[in-house]
């Protein structure tokens, strides 16, 4: 595995970078440089180190230069100034052939819009890097399949990318990288194009995968939650400069300046995490037509002391406790419709955790998460809620 060392990396877009540097050194801002010299500052004097096997996140809003940084690291964009040392190689000094060699074997890249090859099957996509290396067809097939299995796409090899969902397409993108077994993964907003639920799932899986493969990963994102969740170190960029490079804990507790502080303030996780984010899917539900014994058995199988009741369309009806179900069974009731508690606390999926704590904190049954159409989405168990917060909110003391 390789360590990445970046020293004073700068990228000026324009034909007169010297002029731009001159102005920047005098303390002019990015906007002023555009105005005075007509040069666009992509990155200015970025220095950072990525340790072996860690996930280094570069976070910034659009236009902050984060995508330029990652492209400078493998020189898809030529840096204007600065040194890039990866392992024992000086990437910034490589000639065309050395650079190709480096790109083929040492690093690999995942793209925001997947950038899969539409005319190739999933397996051919996964094996693309090997094909470029002129690896034999047999070997390519074998390693490609291994990589697909690693990202959970076993059996999809003969499909074409456009037959897959976004999340699956990005898995192909990941497999394409892993197939060449690079030391470094560059991930450019890899999950930004995905639905929030899928995105979270992919983040979790990336962390699990990282446990297995232990690559050095540089991850670009505009989403601070994502950065804090997956990053071992996070560098926050603004206007082409790194304003803070730190552990997630330190970024939350000791923001370097007001810019970072403002971000962090927005990201107090108890305010950011929503009911949808912490809910669990109910393992079983009962129906109003169920007999009390059926409901009891369902509860027993799931080891729960009460059960939510929905109609056949999935709309929430209410809640039945084990105790009352047992009584109803003893009394010989036909079904449980008579013992459903219909006034139970519900929350909408976009409620934040903070608001959850404020409402109905004395209720003894889990919260039911219900959307506008009364569809039953999930449950939030109070204990799990707290545990989730403790785990997610890093050092909010």
């Amino acid at each position: 595995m390789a360590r990445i060392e970046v020293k004073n990396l700068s990228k000026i877009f324009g034909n007169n970078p010297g002029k731009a540097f001159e102005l920047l050194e005098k303390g002019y801002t990015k906007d002023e440089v555009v105005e005075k010299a007509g040069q666009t500052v992509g990155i200015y004097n970025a220095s950072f180190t990525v340790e072996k096997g860690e996930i280094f996140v570069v976070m910034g809003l659009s236009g902050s230069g984060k995508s330029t940084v990652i492209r400078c690291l493998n020189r898809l964009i030529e840096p204007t100034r600065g040194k890039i040392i990866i392992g024992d190689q000086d990437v910034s000094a490589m000639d065309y052939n050395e650079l190709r060699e480096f790109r083929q074997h040492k690093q690999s890249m995942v793209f925001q819009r997947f950038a899969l090859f539409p005319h190739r099957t999933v397996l051919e996509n996964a094996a693309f890097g090997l094909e470029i290396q002129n690896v034999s067809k047999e070997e390519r097939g074998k390693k490609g399949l291994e990589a697909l299995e690693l990202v959970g796409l076993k059996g999809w090899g003969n499909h074409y990318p456009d037959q897959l969902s976004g999340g699956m397409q990005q898995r192909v993108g990941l497999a394409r990288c892993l197939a060449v077994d690079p030391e470094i993964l560059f991930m450019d907003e890899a999950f930004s194009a995905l639905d929030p639920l899928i995105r979270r799932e992919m983040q979790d899986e990336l962390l699990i995968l990282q446990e297995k493969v232990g690559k050095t990963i540089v991850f670009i994102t505009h989403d601070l939650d994502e950065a804090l969740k997956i990053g071992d170190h996070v560098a926050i960029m603004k206007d082409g400069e790194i304003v803070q490079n730190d552990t997630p804990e330190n970024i939350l507790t000791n923001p370097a300046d007001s810019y970072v502080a403002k971000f962090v303030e927005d990201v107090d996780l108890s305010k950011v995490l929503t009911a949808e984010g912490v809910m669990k899917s109910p393992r079983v539900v009962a129906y109003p037509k169920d007999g009390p014994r059926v409901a009891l058995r369902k509860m027993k199988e799931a080891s729960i002391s009460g059960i939510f009741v929905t109609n056949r369309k999935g709309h929430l009806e209410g809640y039945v406790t084990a105790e009352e179900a047992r009584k109803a069974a003893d009394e010989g009731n036909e079904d449980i419709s008579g013992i459903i508690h219909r006034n139970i606390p519900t929350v909408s999926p976009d409620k934040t955790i903070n608001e959850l704590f404020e409402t109905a904190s004395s209720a003894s049954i889990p919260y039911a998460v219900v959307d506008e159409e009364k569809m039953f989405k999930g449950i939030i168990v109070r204990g799990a809620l707290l545990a989730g917060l403790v785990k997610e909110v890093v050092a909010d003391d």
Partner: protein
Amino acid sequence: MIDKLLNPIDMLPRLPLGAKVDDFIDWLLGQIGVLTRLIANFLEGIMEGITDLLLWFPPFILIVLIALIAWRLSNRNIAIFTFFGLVLIYNMNLWPGAMSTITMILIAVTISLCIGLPVGILSTRYTLFHRIVWPILDFMQTMPAFVYLIPAVFFFSLGVVAAMIATVVFSMPPVIRLTGLGIRQVPEDVVEASHAFGSTDWQLLTKVQLPLAMPTIMAGVNQCIMLALSMVVIAAMIGAGGLGGHVYGAIQRLNIGLGFESGLAVVILAIILDRITQSSRQTSEE
């Protein structure tokens, strides 16, 4: 005097554009006469060889063969049309003319592709080259087709070869244009991904750009064939022979019947060639 003042452009001496072009062609002819004769002999040889080969086959067998090829490349309906269309051409006694027309198209299109594809590809690599080539293409495409016949005759004298050269010049632009367009249309992120995996320019071209540009390039090939066919007919005026020769002869003798028959034969060939190349384009789109 007053007249002249009112219309000052009359005072401009007549610019000798035409005369200069004449001089230039004469000069060029002196310089490369040997070369053009070589090319002419070469093309004529190939032309005769292929036409003889096509005519050597018993027509019925050749018709069945071509129909089978049509079936293989597209579908059954087109194969059936091909079969009956060619039978009709044979029946109208236009078989040798059709064969020589097909040969001319084959050769002209092959040359067009051999020049057009690389030029189209190069135009996407080098901006300067693109800037030079594109106006030339505009020129080539808007110049009335007949005009090509004159220099072609000068260099290669009357006959099949001059016709073929004029056809090449006329049919090449869409190949260059659509090849360039197809490659430019390949999504940028896909090209970037290919670079990111360390592909060489050649690998990028053959593994990513050309396959993705193929439907557009095939549209260019289709256009090329259609233009070649139309030009081959026009080129009968400089002795290209073939079906065009029959059409031309019919015009001169005001023979409506012959004109209709040979015109119909051209249409049949056009439909067959168009359908076959179009459907192979659709297959590559899938």
